């Protein structure tokens, strides 16, 4: 590490970021809280490549031969499974963390392209329900705003055990965002720093959760698919237990998955990369004979159609996007460069979602800021983005000779690095070598 000044050498251990953090901690006496997901470099989908068809495989014609994209979620136990047109869903993000306008835009966008969107901690707003053709209702430890009427209005129920940004951690929503409406929905005093428990209040382990799922099914007459969402850590075991407790769908969120407000130390140091989690989840399902029967949704760092296609080739039935959807809405857009700068950040770097001062009007409850986001315009951008993701994934699938995205398979992939080959369990490019293949038992 060097600066532009010859002779000055920066410590690799105590670099400028580390020094800044030590100084910040010493000044404030509180850990750093921020939004977004892990920012450190991790083995990711970029480290995988598709093997397009050639002599030994037969490609599909790009614009004339079909490559279907639909997916059915939750048909194992639920009377009314979801049938989505595309396998790219919108992940759970709360009204409270996001403005009402942002939630409405996400719902509109999902409906336009035939996919689902998801509530978050704090309950369901009428606007979100009205604008979302298919809405997944999150059932979280805090149960803020949870009520049986909304449970019955939902199209599916997602029991959240954790998220990739903070597996094992609870939630927080700082007082700046606990406005009158948010406070009323969550039965909290206005302006308090809201803490959400990390464990559910009325069950403590998989045996209990199995009974909880029966209760939720009884209350909703066995109609709704039940998802179980886990942050990626001991994914093999967690997914097997999720199947055992009766989940219709398992959602695995890798450590690149976003958050509205979490300690930096948590975001960067807990969990495993999405790439490492998928093969563990697929193995767990396959060993139980449940792969493709209990569907697998993967999230955490999905940015492009290539990421979608790679996740599905590794065995996911669908993916979920959060951070990318916010960017499509307008988050970190250069048009707000001056505003980001005024907050001590820059367009492309802004992650203070907890502060509620988002210039793009997305991660805020400030009415003046929130008004900057037009839900119809925002929805158009997110819908455009979802269509691009879908077309990109189809392009890659056709090149691999697949007439449906779900037909993509690990055999279509190779890895660029030893680490990604070991994690994704596909061979290093140009070799037959899958590092650690013999030790991939759970």
């Amino acid at each position, binding site marked *: 590490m060097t600066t532009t000044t010859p002779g000055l050498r920066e410590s690799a251990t105590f670099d400028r970021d580390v020094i800044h953090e030590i100084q910040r901690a010493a000044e404030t006496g*509180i850990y750093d809280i921020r939004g977004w997901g892990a920012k450190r470099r991790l083995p990711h989908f970029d480290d995988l490549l598709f093997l397009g068809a050639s002599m030994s495989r037969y490609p599909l014609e790009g614009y004339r031969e079909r490559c279907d994209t639909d997916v059915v979620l939750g048909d194992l136990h639920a009377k009314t499974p979801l049938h989505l047109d595309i396998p790219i869903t919108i992940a759970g993000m709360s009204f409270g963390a996001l403005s009402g306008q942002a939630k409405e835009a996400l719902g509109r966008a999902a409906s336009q392209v035939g996919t689902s969107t998801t509530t978050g901690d704090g309950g369901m707003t009428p606007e979100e329900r009205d604008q979302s053709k298919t809405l997944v209702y999150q059932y979280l430890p805090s149960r803020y705003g949870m009520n049986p009427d909304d449970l019955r209005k939902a199209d599916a129920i997602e029991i959240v055990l954790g998220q990739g940004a903070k597996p094992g951690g609870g939630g927080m929503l700082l*007082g700046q965002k606990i406005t009158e409406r948010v406070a009323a929905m969550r039965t909290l005093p206005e302006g308090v720093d809201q803490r959400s428990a990390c464990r559910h*209040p009325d069950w403590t382990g998989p045996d209990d959760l199995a009974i909880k799922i029966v*209760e939720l099914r009884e209350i909703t007459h066995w109609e709704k698919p039940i998802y179980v969402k886990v942050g990626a850590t001991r994914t093999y075991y967690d997914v097997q237990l999720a199947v055992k407790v009766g989940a219709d769908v398992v959602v695995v969120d890798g450590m690149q998955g976003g958050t509205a407000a979490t300690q930096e130390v948590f975001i960067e140091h807990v969990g495993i990369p999405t790439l490492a989690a998928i093969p563990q989840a697929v193995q767990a399902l396959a060993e139980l004979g449940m792969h493709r029967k209990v569907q697998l949704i993967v999230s955490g760092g999905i940015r492009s159609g290539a990421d979608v296609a790679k996740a599905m080739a590794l065995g996911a039935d669908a993916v979920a996007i959060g951070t990318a959807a916010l960017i499509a809405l307008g988050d970190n857009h250069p048009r707000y460069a001056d505003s980001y700068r005024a907050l001590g950040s820059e367009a492309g770097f802004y992650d203070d979602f907890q502060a509620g001062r988002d210039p793009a009007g997305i991660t805020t409850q400030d009415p003046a800021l929130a008004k900057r986001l037009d839900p119809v315009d925002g929805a158009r951008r997110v819908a455009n983005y979802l269509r691009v993701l879908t077309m990109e994934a189809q392009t890659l699938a056709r090149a691999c000779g697949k007439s449906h995205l779900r037909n993509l398979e690990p055999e279509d992939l190779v890895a660029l690095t030893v680490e990604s080959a070991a994690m994704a369990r596909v061979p290093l490019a140009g070799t037959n070598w899958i590092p650690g293949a013999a030790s991939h038992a759970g």
Partner: protein
Amino acid sequence: MAPVATTPAVTIDLSTSSIRQINELLASPDAPQALTITNPRGAHALACGLDAELEVTIDGHVGYYCAGMNQHATVTVNGNAGVGVAENMMSGSVRITGDASQSAGATAHGGLLIIEGNAAARCGISMKGVDIVVGGDIGHMSAFMGQAGRLVVCGNAGEALGDSLYEARIYVRGKVASLGADCVEKSMRGEHLAELKELLDAAGVDADPTEFTRYGSARNLYNFHVDNASAY
């Protein structure tokens, strides 16, 4: 399983019916106004999700989540209740004549939960507006993160009562093993004696409100301050 058989007295024997059949009947527009369920034998998720002014009596012990998410209905369990009885109740009332296991009334938003015996740990955890009256003792971590509502304990309370409390109010007649973070003893003013009497009367408990002590949030942890770091 044979179709649900209802006698003129509208009694259903759970030994010959399924939970699904009973819950489906109770959720239907044709649900009987008053229903007695016999032989529950610790069944889980019994009479959960009710959404009408029904009177349901269960003769025997029930398992987890009995009367969960109750709305409007009056449910009486003549026996003990498992984990999470009346969890997330919105309205109506639930009475347990025996003891209740953990997390009784967890996250409940409204209604009245009466436990004539004792309640185990985490009674009223994350309560959001429910009123809970316990005739006996309650276990540790009760009313943890309680947001709203009233918890009345005629016996003793276990450790860490009211930890991280928001605005729920707690009345205990007996001893408190220890208070949780940010939970403090508060004075009993006239309005508290009045609301406590009202709660005791509603629960049918004969107790003198002046014998109770009130506990609530000190509100020191509502917004993070470094001086309170050790309390988090």
